């Protein structure tokens, strides 16, 4: 639901991932981490929900 709302507001799908990995599932962890990294890299640097300096007067 949170992912849904974030994407609804304009965050790119692929920016946020959820996974359930047991501490014993080392291969799964590597796989998921690689997939996440690839997908996020493909999207390029994030431009949303990043605040460098408050945009105020």
């Amino acid at each position, binding site marked *: 639901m949170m992912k849904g709302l974030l994407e609804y507001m304009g965050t790119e799908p692929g920016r946020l991932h959820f996974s359930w990995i047991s501490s014993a599932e080392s291969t799964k962890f590597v796989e998921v981490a690689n997939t996440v990294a690839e997908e996020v890299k493909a999207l390029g640097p994030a431009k949303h929900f990043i*605040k*460098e*300096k*408050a945009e*105020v*007067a």
Partner: protein
Amino acid sequence: MTSVIIAKSKLNDFLASLKSGYQVLGPVRQGDMIAFGPVNKAEDLALPYSNTRLSIKSVFFPQSERMFGYSLDKEDADAGIIKETPKEYPNRVVLGLRPCDAKAVTLVDVNMDNPQFQDPWWVKRRETTTLIGLGCEHPCSTCFCTSMGSGPFDETGLDVLLTELPDAYLAKSLTPKGDQLLKQAKGTDAASPANEKTAAEIKTKAEQTLPQLDTAKLKDKNMMELFNARFWERVQFACINCGACTFLCPTCWCFDIQDEVSKKAGDRIRNWDSCMFPLFTLHGTGHNPRDHKVQRVRQRFMHKLKYYIDKYGDGPACVGCGRCVQACPVNIDIRNVITLMNEYQTSAGTKA
């Protein structure tokens, strides 16, 4: 002081000449609302209009404003030292604000620019801004300016007052600043006595449409008895303690100061705050002197309608613009509260 005529057909000439010396702001359309924004040509102005949703105050006192900046980089010799943020203060004109807003600015001046302390940002912006007001030929039904010491053609705080005539605006300068502006402006013609007469009639007619609320007795009430009055319980019930009334109010000036850090640098920022919020008075210890809604609602009205009057011998700190009446989500109507306060029987005397 001079009066000139600006023909509606020459409004663009007038604006063009203003733009050579000033940034021009005025009521412009922003979505469903009218707000103060940059004006480049006459067509940008959302005229005729009743009033802007938000008051003039943000022109002098932005909702969020960077006060200071600092470095937190340990390598930096000045790390931790708080420094002024450089700011520009171009000459500006606000064209077409309503007289109640200008009156409100003078009421806030008393707080921001007092003999002991001067708020530098407010003072600087006040100095570099010229206010050209537009009289209200058709006040709203929620307006009660004439009851609050202002009026649809009130000149207080304005440098120039415009009165809309059928094909022109009669512009009357009220201060040396306004005088200078009109002298340098193009698109103006001499005003005739007939123009002045028409304007005077429009003014009288507009004033007659406004309701009269009695506020005369407020200053003689005993502050503590008014504070302890039972009617506050009834007034406060509906309040949801949002900040709509205070943020839209032209005379509400309260603010909060916050530090924000990003990486190795930070800013000290001030933001509008509201006496409606519990956090406004919450002590670090958890104690809150205004913990209950009734205390916060009472504070807002007492501040405007009693404390201000007693403290400065002026006021009330309300100009009757009606914004809070229009915007309160639960219809708490300051006009009723004024009457409750004004009619409440207290023993004589403000202070014992």
